[in-house]
């Protein structure tokens, strides 16, 4: 196990199986933080979860995000990723609407 001091996640073995779960930090940007009422949350997931599956869990937790689900941009750390991307320990996910710089 990596040094957890500087990580935003925890990993631990469940009592009855070899499946490990981890806590993934999810950040909300732009009006998504208004919809959820928070800038970030953490979600406990099984190892091997994809970004798309995590997004589903987030939408189940914050129903207000469901309407924008198809246009949501998904980022792992600082790079855009598609729904099939498999999350790893320590990944930080960001969800936000289309960008509007300039």
């Amino acid at each position, binding site marked *: 196990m990596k040094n957890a001091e500087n990580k935003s996640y925890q990993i631990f073995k469940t009592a009855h199986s070899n499946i490990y779960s981890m806590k993934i930090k999810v950040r909300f940007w*732009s009006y998504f933080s208004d919809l959820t009422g928070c800038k970030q949350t953490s979600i406990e997931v099984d190892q091997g979860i994809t970004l798309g599956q995590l997004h589903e869990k987030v939408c189940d937790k914050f129903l207000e995000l469901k309407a924008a689900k198809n246009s949501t941009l998904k*980022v792992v750390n600082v790079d855009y990723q598609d729904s099939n991307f498999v999350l790893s320990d320590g990944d930080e996910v*960001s969800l*936000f*609407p289309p960008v*509007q*710089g*300039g």
Partner: protein
Amino acid sequence: MKIELNISTELINEIALCKHQTISEKAGAVVTFSGIVRAQEGESQISAINYESFDEMAEHQFKLIFSEINERWPIESIRLIHRIGIVKVNEASLWVEVISCHRKEAFAACQYLINEMKSRVPIWKKIINK
């Protein structure tokens, strides 16, 4: 290719920026672009825009775009400033300078940079109505 990138809450001072311009003897084109906050956004009259940025990712995405430009065109330098926080009507939210030997690549790179920024760099607007 020389790069200067600044995501800042400070006013964009174009005169000061031009004073600090550095051009080699090979350069033959300087393209600059200023993006200004308009008084009308859609149907609404507005007083300002509050820009929010995911800074760490914005810098990373800008660097990826600069790298792509460097591979496509012979550009001498790029300077880019994007303001965040509250930007009032008539103030610049964005300033870009592209320097190259010839105008064709300078215009093309500037256009590419702004187009890519608008689709990839995580900066958002929040309208402040009058």
